[in-house]
């Protein structure tokens, strides 16, 4: 009973959609069962419990997706890998584990799924989920993690102006080669060459900084 009551812990985070009436109705039923229903408990967030798998999903799907996007850089793969994480993790998951434990488990699953992805597609682990990656770091609805944006900005800041510009136009602003060339007042052919050199330079920077 105590355990059941603890599980009604309110979801303090998650996308708006996450607070379904189902979650609330469960909470209310169980609060009503409690003899001391007159004094509602304030739940501590770190002691959160999920009422069911749907709550696990709603609270974490955007977090897992963002993490995966940061590691693969494209939507189709990020979606597939997110799906694989939940499909693999939900069945053996014990919902009475705390929210923090559930996230830790999702992260371990995500690490395995990502490693498998690279093994399957390129035969090299291009990116990995490390101990620095976390599902808690940013609120679930942040558009990009501050971490991701920060790393890209730091990388760009070290490059010469023309390199920085072509990479910004192509990667961050999603311009076509032609649009980028026009914006920079250079030929399309030269824009391609410049982009290639700039990416090589950016890659070399990373080797030094790591």
């Amino acid at each position, binding site marked *: 009973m105590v355990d059941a009551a603890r599980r009604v812990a309110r979801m303090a985070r998650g996308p708006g959609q996450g607070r379904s009436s189902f979650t609330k109705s469960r909470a209310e039923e169980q609060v009503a069962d409690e003899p001391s229903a007159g004094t509602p408990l304030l739940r501590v967030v770190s002691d959160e419990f999920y009422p069911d798998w749907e709550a696990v999903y709603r609270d974490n799907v955007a977090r897992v997706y*963002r993490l995966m996007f940061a590691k693969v850089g494209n939507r189709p793969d990020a979606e597939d890998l997110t799906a694989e994480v939940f499909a693999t993790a939900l069945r053996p998951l014990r919902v009475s584990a705390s929210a923090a434990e559930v996230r830790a488990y999702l992260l371990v699953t995500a690490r395995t799924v990502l490693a498998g992805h690279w093994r399957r*597609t390129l035969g090299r682990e291009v990116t990995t989920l490390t101990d620095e990656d976390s599902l808690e770091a940013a609120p679930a609805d942040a558009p990009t993690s501050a971490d991701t944006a920060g790393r890209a900005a730091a990388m760009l800041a070290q490059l010469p102006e023309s390199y920085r510009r072509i990479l910004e136009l192509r990667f961050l602003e999603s311009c076509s080669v032609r649009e980028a060339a026009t914006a920079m007042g250079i030929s399309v052919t030269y824009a391609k060459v410049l982009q290639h050199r700039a990416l090589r330079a950016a890659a070399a920077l990373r080797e030094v900084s790591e």
Partner: protein
Amino acid sequence: MSRRGARRFVADLLRGRRPRSFRAQDTDVDDLRAAITLRSAQPGSGVPREEFVADLHQRLADQLAGKHSTEDAEPVRPARVDTTRRRLVAASSLAAAAAAVGAVADHVLTTRTPAPDGVAGPQTLVPNTGSWRTVAASADLTEGGVQGFDLGTVVGFVSRTGGALRAVSGVCTHLGCRLALDVPTRQLDCPCHQTSFALDGELLRHQLRVPPPALPQLEVREADGAVQIYAPPGPA
């Protein structure tokens, strides 16, 4: 030799496509990693598509409800997955991870959850601290009438049908957009995704994969010639 593979990988990333597989060399890895870092910093890239979130939710619900047997093992991933690998992964490292989290209790997860609307009955908002706040004069809310209100803490619509008063929240239960009253049809329309609710809060129409729950009810009464809602105190 693999330079071309790496270039094509980057070109695919820039087109937002799934990059094609190739046998990468060690020398390619840094380029690819730099491209991924840059690409994932594009604004908005970290937010999953709403259709994806709803679709995956449905597929997981089907999977957990046992519509597909475990042996099929393909309900969620598209066909390109290597099943052997899946089983291997499931059997080894993940089992260990699951053990670390705790014992397996499959039934907790597979219990069919009630439909989000209906089964649990409509929710009624009863704030911890509230008071009866006037939203209209009784005389202004005649039979069949509807009136919107904004109490700062709560917004909603109050209506009188068959002599009875009823008040519902004016916020869409999908993603929180404010509903608008469509006078001719007497329904509450969401400006975001074409969801519509009846004045009693029931869901009338939606285009979402998972139906959003009915609108929460608010407590309403008539006193001293005024229609009042029980709501938290807040900005006037």
